[in-house]
């Protein structure tokens, strides 16, 4: 969102550093890194796959240009990044809509934090992302 009310005084360090914040803050950093990686891949993907408009020969030339072990490993990273970004995105949307954060309570000292309420969801989505990454890896490297 626009940041004029709360400027990022740390600059780029503020993008990636979790500081003393918890597990979810590092999920935020990883969400950002995977998002930028997926966007970069996607912009290149638009151009590479546009070869199909020129027919079979152009398509096969384009596909052979992006084949080999390095590209396969890179594609797997894209798959794993998608798995993480997708399930973590679902978590973020659920929390933004008010799910899994507990009911509002009066702010009476010692103050309760909602982080403990959110943590099971964070752990669950990471387990799902892990299962998807392993499933994808098995398909990429043992079944393809």
């Amino acid at each position: 969102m626009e940041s004029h009310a709360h400027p990022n005084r740390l600059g780029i360090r503020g993008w990636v550093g979790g500081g003393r914040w918890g597990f979810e803050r590092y999920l935020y950093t990883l969400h950002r890194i995977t998002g930028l990686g997926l966007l970069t891949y996607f912009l290149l993907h638009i151009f590479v796959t546009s070869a199909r408009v020129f027919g079979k020969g152009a398509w096969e030339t384009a596909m052979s240009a992006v084949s080999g072990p390095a590209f396969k490993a890179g594609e797997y990273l894209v798959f794993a990044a998608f798995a993480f970004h997708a399930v973590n995105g679902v978590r973020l949307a659920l929390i933004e809509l008010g799910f899994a954060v507990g009911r509002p309570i009066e702010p009476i000292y010692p103050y309760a934090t909602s982080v403990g309420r959110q943590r099971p969801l964070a752990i669950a989505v990471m387990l799902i992302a892990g299962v998807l990454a392993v499933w994808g890896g098995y398909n990429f490297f043992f079944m393809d």
Partner: protein
Amino acid sequence: MRDRTLWTWHIFAGAVILVFLGLHMTIMHLNGTFPTFNNPFGGEAESWQNVAARARNLFFTVTYVVMLGAALYHGLFGLRNILLELDPGAGLRRSINVALSVLGLALFAFGAWVAATAPGVVSRMGG
């Protein structure tokens, strides 16, 4: 447009991507588990026969364009939010908005043209 509206569209685009990119990933990369799921010729999902077969299916043509638009919006709006966190001045902020909008629209036009005119699509429409 207000940022709140743009943010709502960002989340909505994310949901669209979740469905269609999930389907795309399943077809392209989980083809070991689902060998003939929209890969009618089997084997590599990116082989020309399978690509052309999917191009002949209107469902794929339409969903490629929808996914293209949703992914460009979601990705470029996300990039805009990251850049605006550095709190640029009004002029630079406007430049970022214009540059990302033009880039998104240009790539959408190009990608939609590819999806609509690829060989299988053209032959199905009698071109």
